[in-house]
């Protein structure tokens, strides 16, 4: 499948319209605990996870591998039983139901297309199990294949399709039974970069067109940030933060989220007092004073961390200004759109600065030069843990 990916947006023409938006909760996870194994070797995959996913939402579970996001998805699908807690689907408690009794469908990471069945048989599989009549199955299958623009390839075997085409078949197959919730388990991870970027747009479009609630699992923050209505960042079996893309990038609630989403500089500080508009002042061990917006309610004397995104720092000529932090330029790394610069503070702390190469070669510094750092307003965020 070379070149451009044709859009999926003709779904509107097919009459799969987005239903009126409601504030109904689609999936509700209540205090779910999942441990694998027993005794001293037991592993806790989910540690008291609770969250609500709204109807019609594109919801993403984001986290590093082993954080429990896939386990949570599999619990919603019914592939894992849970150790404790409850799962509700539109108000019905479902954790006792086997996967084949749950009105949710999954797009698997490796698509899991049945290799011995053709494209249309794969798409028809769920409908057949639901005992739809043959005519209905046929029309629904062709509708779905048209939706994903694979109607020309209905008789091919999965092995005869490209990765992108297989992806579409998997999507069509999962959508064919018209599930209330669609679960997507890193569905784009096996595609190459260009295709992946194109599919992001299409998936988002498809979700908006169909109005089906999407629960999307990924470890790729870019994917999560571009598509999701809301993102749950997970780590070590716990939800660290739930919020929009903007929320979790600009206002991380803890060190993990700040560090995991994008690049950041973390400095150890001590809270010294309060400032205007809920901001606090703090000071690093070297005596650098910062004003930051806190996550939580810090008290004077607390030890905490400050997170500063590298693009919110500007490198300037050495200056005596009050808010200028003196430093020495270290390594410069040219990255195309911008240049990354590692600078050292007087105590040796390394700080990453990223300046756009918007107007010619932006940086007039060389390795070893003396310089100063200037923080944007509100760049520093105080994290209590």
């Amino acid at each position, binding site marked *: 499948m070379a070149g451009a990916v044709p859009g999926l947006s003709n779904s509107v023409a097919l009459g799969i319209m987005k239903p009126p938006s409601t504030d109904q909760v689609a999936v509700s996870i209540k205090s779910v605990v999942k441990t694998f194994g027993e005794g001293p*070797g037991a592993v806790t995959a989910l540690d008291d996870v609770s969250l609500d996913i709204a109807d019609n939402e594109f919801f993403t579970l984001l986290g590093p591998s*082993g954080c429990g996001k896939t386990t949570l998805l599999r619990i919603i699908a019914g592939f*894992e039983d849970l150790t404790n807690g409850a799962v509700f689907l539109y108000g019905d408690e479902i954790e006792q139901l086997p996967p084949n009794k749950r009105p949710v469908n999954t797009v698997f990471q490796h698509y899991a297309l049945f290799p011995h069945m053709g494209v249309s048989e794969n798409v028809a599989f769920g409908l057949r199990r639901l005992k739809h009549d043959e005519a209905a199955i046929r029309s629904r299958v062709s509708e779905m294949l048209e939706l994903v623009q694979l109607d020309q390839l209905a008789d091919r075997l999965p092995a005869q399709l490209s990765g992108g085409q297989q992806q579409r078949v998997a999507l069509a197959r999962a959508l064919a039974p018209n599930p209330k919730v669609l679960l997507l388990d890193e569905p784009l991870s096996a595609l190459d970069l260009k295709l992946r970027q194109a599919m992001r747009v299409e998936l988002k479009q498809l979700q908006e067109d169909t109005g089906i609630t999407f629960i999307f699992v990924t470890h790729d923050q870019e994917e999560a940030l571009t598509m999701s209505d809301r993102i749950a960042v997970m780590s070590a079996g716990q939800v660290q933060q739930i919020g929009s893309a903007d929320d979790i990038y600009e206002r991380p609630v803890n060190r993990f989220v700040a560090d995991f989403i994008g690049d950041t500089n973390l400095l150890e500080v001590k809270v010294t007092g309060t400032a205007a508009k809920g901001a606090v002042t703090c000071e690093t061990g070297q005596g650098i004073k910062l004003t930051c917006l806190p996550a939580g309610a810090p008290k004077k004397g607390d030890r905490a961390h400050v997170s500063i995104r590298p693009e919110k720092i500007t490198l300037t000529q050495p200056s005596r200004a009050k808010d200028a932090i003196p430093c020495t330029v270290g390594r410069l790394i040219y990255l195309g759109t911008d240049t990354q610069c590692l600078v050292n503070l007087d105590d040796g702390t390394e700080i990453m600065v990223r300046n756009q190469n918007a107007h010619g070669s932006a940086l007039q510094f060389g390795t070893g030069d003396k310089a100063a750092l200037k923080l944007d307003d509100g760049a520093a965020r105080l994290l209590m843990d």
Partner: protein
Amino acid sequence: MAGSLGLTTNGAVQPKAAAPISRDRLLLLSPALIAILVFLVTPLIFIITYSFLTPGTYGGVEWVFSTDAYVQFLFERDLFTEDLVFSNAYLSIYSRSALQAIVATVICLIIGFPTAYFIATRPVSQRTAWVFLITVPYWINLLIRTVSMLFIIRDEGPINHALIALGVTSEPIRMAYTDFGIALGLVYSYLPFMVLPIYASIERFDFRLMEAAYDLYSDRWTILRKIVLPITKPGIIAGSLLVFIPSLGSFIAPDLLGGGKNLMIGNLIALQFQGSRNWPFGSASAVILMTIVLIVLIIFARRRAQAAGH
């Protein structure tokens, strides 16, 4: 619920501690296990039991405890004085069988390693064909193969005819009904067992290591000894076991190719249940054979575990 019937596999976290088996899986597993327990494990327990009983006059056993079968293995009553004296009769049968099996294993290794190596260095497309050729005899009736070997090595067989016609010899060279015949038969029977595992390990061998060794001033044969052999050792050990163990208990080759002159373990055991009608002794012989095999297996398993541990 979903964890049963194996409907989960690629769960994100693999448990370290094993859980008890679920009911569904037990149901699936038990027919095969019960079949093996009832029709193999129980018979093996019977054979151990029988080895401690007294032989019936004409076959069968009497339910009287006795260790005579094991005593008989090492000692015999002197024909004339009735004293219990050490006898190597059975030990020599076992040691000769072991020797035959070792000889067969070594010959198989000498033929099998170069063959496996040769196959593994063919282009991939040819390899499959070679492996197939080596595999076919593995599945062909052992009896038929032994018979065909007997057929060609007889005094009047094609080989001797050809040798005489070529003037290599004037008298047929005796091959059938000799220990050579047995060894040849064993090699012929089990050679594929040697080639295949060695091939598997050479195929996995990273030939760049050879280039590295050449680069470090080694010649071909040094590389073979110092690099290839040590790395492919697991395959060589597996192949040797697969040849040695069946050779040790072999029955057909000694019977047909050895002329029945010298008993091997397999024949000795069969004889006890047919002609000589001493079931406890036959059972004891089988138990001893099984023990030897078990010890060999355990030794190699230990070795492998140790090797893996380092």
